[in-house]
């Protein structure tokens, strides 16, 4: 991962409705190709949603880690 890539952290912990995917979609609207977006969430459904979102938008999932108190998903914007 490039050290120079703008890295946005979105704290969506505790969001149950509409949920973390809202925050990811909003970040995507603002992002540029090359940006890295890190999404923090507590809703376990986020894992499947981030993967489905990346597949649909043809962006790249760098990692999805369950850290116990939060699930951290990192995506790189490669298409916009």
């Amino acid at each position: 991962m490039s050290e120079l890539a703008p890295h946005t952290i979105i704290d969506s912990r505790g969001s149950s409705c509409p949920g973390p995917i809202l925050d990811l979609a909003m970040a995507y609207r603002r992002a540029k190709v090359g940006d890295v977006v890190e999404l923090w969430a507590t809703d376990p459904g986020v894992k499947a949603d981030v993967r489905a979102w990346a597949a649909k938008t043809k962006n790249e999932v760098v990692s999805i880690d369950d850290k116990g108190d939060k699930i951290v998903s990192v995506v790189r914007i490669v298409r916009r």
Partner: protein
Amino acid sequence: MTTKATRSFPSSVSFAGDIMKRVLIVGGGTGGTMLANHLDRHKFDVTVLSASSEHMFQPSLLYVAFANASANIVRDERRLLSRHVRFVQDKATLVDLPNRVVATESSGRYAYDFIVLATGADTVTSQIAGLDEINKRFGDYHSSVAQAQKLWRSLDAFQGGTIALGQATPICVCPPSPVEGILLVDRLLRQKGLREKSRLVFFTPYPRPYPAEPMNEIIEPIMKERGIEIMTFFDVDRIDPETRTIISIEGDSITYDLPIVIPAFIGAKIAFEPANVIDADHFVITDKETLHVKGFNNAFAIGDGTNIPTSKAGIAAHLESYVVAKQLAGKPATFDGRTNCPVDLADGRGTFVIGSFTAPVVKKRPSRMAHLMKIMMGYFYWISLSGILDPMFEVYFAMTKPKPRPELSSAKVRQTKVTPRGASRE
């Protein structure tokens, strides 16, 4: 900035001879009105500053647009406030938090001891190409009564073809309203004998029609049963009124005869000092539990105008107003993110979206009772603003409290100070 004198309403001395604290509430919607009416008149000198003296029950716009409703929509804010509350009709232009003063468009500046920002969310059509043109032509059901009436006329004139309905961006005030809209369109067309001649397309930026999965398990089968086409991950990029096409960021498109596009939402256009208390969409950066505006212990924010990760809905403003009222009275209180949004399934049944920061949305079986409660809320709403129904709400919220997620019930979930929700860049 205005050069007019600062108003401080200096004669604020209580009956007991104590100096009363000045509470300035900016915004006269659900949260602002309810909070004003819940503050002790003997301890606080309360002013509500609002650009309009009209108080609209926003959920009623759904029925104006899709059922031509006309009653019980707007009331005079001054008649909804307790007699001890001072009402000022003016537009706030600058909130200066370090200097504890608010500048307004025409009546000068207002000093305060405590401020509560209940400034709501505004619809905006300029962010997406083509949206303003179709919005002006066809109307919408989130911005005003006039726009909702325009949408009703557009639907009334519709004789068949494709209706495309969805939200322009991922943020939508009243998250169930897109689904309710398409279900009510379906009902209307069936009543008019036009359903066979019509194609209904529901588009959403989310992975499923209703973003919270347990609720979607109820809603998606109903939509499919009624022949509504669903396009997921459809995040509107632009609209071309010439070719009658809505194009998504993801590269999909829909050709429409009647577009019903819910505009984007932003926080109120007020300047803030410091400027970093609002996010990129003008929402006030707010501690989701204490409801303090970032960095200011004498400033709170409630309702649709905050960046708190819960539904932008009247219920949040309602419950947040209790939390702020208690804190101002010196009692500990925190907001738990509780939602309680009724959903009209357009077949005489309804359901509720219930969740919180620590409890996922529950799957609630549709019932006629839930629908009746949604309709009754339109009437209860006005008296609930006074606080008279608080005991009833207390019982209801306790009875319907969602169960916490097991894996998170012991670990307290808090917002980080470094990166509150929104796109802060490191």
